[in-house]
């Protein structure tokens, strides 16, 4: 099984990704950047990571999220889908997010 197939199984197009309770984004005014705050972890977020998490509200499907980001950033849908899947799957593996079915 390829890495891509495995990610697609973790987050199918119809799944609705969301951060788990106790995990949140935070604007750090001292450092002037966004962080993802989770148990024992503070992860600096870049623009795209922040944008993905802002869409991942547990209501929108993964496919909808990709559509919205592709429109907003005027970027190829396949590339956005690949980036967003890898990003969210890493958070799921680290017990910071979930993909609701």
């Amino acid at each position: 099984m390829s890495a891509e197939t495995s990610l697609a199984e973790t987050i199918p197009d119809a799944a609705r990704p969301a951060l788990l309770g106790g995990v949140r984004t935070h604007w750090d005014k001292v450092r002037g950047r966004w962080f993802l705050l989770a148990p024992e972890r503070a992860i600096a977020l870049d623009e795209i990571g922040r944008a993905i998490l802002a869409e991942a509200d547990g209501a929108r499907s993964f496919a909808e999220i990709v559509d919205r980001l592709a429109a907003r950033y005027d970027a190829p849908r396949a590339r956005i889908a690949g980036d967003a899947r890898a990003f969210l799957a890493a958070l799921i593996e680290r017990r910071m997010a979930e993909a609701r079915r």
Partner: protein
Amino acid sequence: MTDTAAQGTPPHDTPAPPMAMLAELTHRCPLACPYCSNPLELIGRKAELGTAQWAGVLRQAAELGVLQLHLSGGEPAARRDLEDITAAASGAGLYTNLITSGVGLTCARVRALAAAGLDHVQLSVQGPDAASADEIGGYRGGFARKLEVALWVGEAGLPLTLNAVMHRRNLDRVDQMIALACELGARRLEVACVQFHGWATLNRGALMPTRAQAARASAAVKAARERLKGVLVIDFVPPDHYARYPKACMGGWGSTGLNVMPDGTVLPCHAAMTIPGLVFERVPERALAEIWRHSAAFNAFRGEAWMQEPCRSCERRHLDRGGCRCQAMALAGDPAATDPTCVKSPLNARLRAAAEADSEAAGTLTYRPAPA
């Protein structure tokens, strides 16, 4: 010992802000763990900062750039105002973690803490079953209470980390600890081997793991991580006496975190008072930001100018920053020496031999009495 520590380095370029702060709200604790990591001289109740003082310190911490706050102790639940302090932390925008033994918490208090904005609970466990856990903690009924607390934490919608402190008596049961973490619905498990500083040094003969145990535990954790991917995250702190290189203690002195004692004394790490010659300042008398940026104690081991050989020319110095300053003090008698847990330290062979000898000893447990 060199003069570096006593005098501090010259005024440093403004250091990056700290990411995390450990607030030791009290040193009072119902448990009597023989590896207690609080300083040898405990601070009594009368000297503890009050609610409003803590709230002020927490606001200062957030303004300084602290993102993660750990409310700890002793047992933080021994303070009746824990809920108010939590609300102050949450109000300041801090990600607030409660580090607790669970003793002193009730279902109502856990709910109140969640309502006050608590983000996460880290619950300590002394063993995978009541008999062994309560023996180490010196508190009968402690284990049963922890199981209840884990349930209440889940019901309140808070994420749970289990913190398993490991040593010779329980290191072979790491798989049972992992199973317990899964059973209790924890997202994370910290498998932390005892650091033999302070009070724990009295119990080296009773608690020092064997080298074989350390290797077995490391393999068990590795296998469990693979098996439990996406279910349980496991952090492992191996016994450093058997490691090749030291840990970058605190991510580097004065670089990432700070520690506030119950009376407001601000430390670069929880054991820093074991280093003679350093003068530690207190909040609220001096602003937290000033202490972080300018105090001689925080500047003493920042950067690399204080390093001696073999650290000074070592290619790993950016990774481990010479290891733990307090361990260098305790084992080499010099806080600027290479941490003797490093294979490059001239004291390393002696340290390993002593650890191996202690791991074969038949020591009895010396419990920690609570402060007045």
